[in-house]
């Protein structure tokens, strides 16, 4: 009876490990450019903006184009039929939604992931020390 439980638990842990290890890659949703080209349909590609390649907005055609490097290091041109998204330069990560069109990626949406101004622990500390040293003592209650 006891052996059955122990063996069962060990088997369960083993199989659950197998399940978890292989399941993660299927639900993450983000792809790289190569996989996006393979599926041929809509895909989300996550990557970073390549600053030293030409990034421009064509006013007459209303196309914003830039180069993006995905997580495997592949660099592709991204074309986006809208003006440049706000905060684009500050982005630490860019997620483009769309599909591969030859060598370029035709994006229908761009998500810009900027560093949060609320979660930056170092910046907060700095601000806090500055404000506490410069804040007038009278009439301020800090709780």
């Amino acid at each position: 009876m006891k052996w059955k439980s122990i063996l069962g638990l060990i088997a369960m842990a083993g199989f659950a490990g197998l399940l978890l290890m292989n399941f993660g890659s299927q639900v993450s949703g983000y792809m790289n450019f190569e996989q996006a080209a393979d599926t041929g349909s809509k895909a989300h590609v996550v990557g970073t903006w390549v600053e030293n390649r030409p990034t421009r907005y064509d006013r007459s055609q209303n196309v914003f184009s830039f180069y993006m490097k995905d997580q495997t290091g592949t660099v592709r041109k991204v074309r986006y039929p809208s003006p440049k998204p706000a905060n684009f330069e500050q982005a630490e990560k860019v997620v483009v939604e769309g599909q591969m069109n030859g060598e370029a990626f035709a994006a229908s949406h761009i998500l810009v992931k900027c560093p949060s101004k609320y979660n930056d622990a170092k910046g907060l500390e700095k601000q806090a020390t500055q404000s506490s040293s410069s804040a007038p003592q009278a009439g301020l209650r800090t709780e």
Partner: protein
Amino acid sequence: MDWIAGMWAVFRKDLRVELRTRYALNSLLLFVLGSLLLVLFAVGPQPLTARVQSALLWIVMLFAASIGLGRSFVAEQEQGTVLLLQLNTRPSMVFAGKLLFNLLTVGLLTGLAAGAFLFLLNVEVPAPGLLGLALALGAVGLAGATTLLAALVARAARKGPLLPVLLLPLLIPLLVAGTSATRKALAGLPWIQAQDELLTLIGFAGATISASVVLFDYIWHE
């Protein structure tokens, strides 16, 4: 030897009861053919992508399984044969017998659903081996998860809608991996690309069945 004989007796009893009442068989047949015909009429002669085909196939399998499989333990409860089983057999025999019966049912259901689906929608399969393996592993996982939950649900006051409600969240990994592997088989991708999905399916089936082996004693005697 004793254990196998007990398991076999439970299995044969279930099979005989099923062949007399044809509860699961009729509802499965009706559901599978009904939903496939509905899909057929709705889609018409349009060719579907592999993604849509795999989703349709798994929808049919999932709902057919959640309708047909919950019966096994509920019937024991309703007919008052639970005490008899508890007196005469060890819990693991009951579980193994029921699991075997559910495996047979799901196997039949999967074969029927996949066969009818491929035939009615006129789908050609570039990788039949991969499709067969994905469906077989999916069927084992489906039977494993349903058997344990059916034993749990049989004790509850309102049994009808409880099994699908409990089953759906548990089956998410199976469904994601199963549809993905089926899609790859229908799209004719090589085996190596479906490795993750197949390993996930093996892990799911193994985890649910070994969890059932550990937990069933407690459910059965409570």
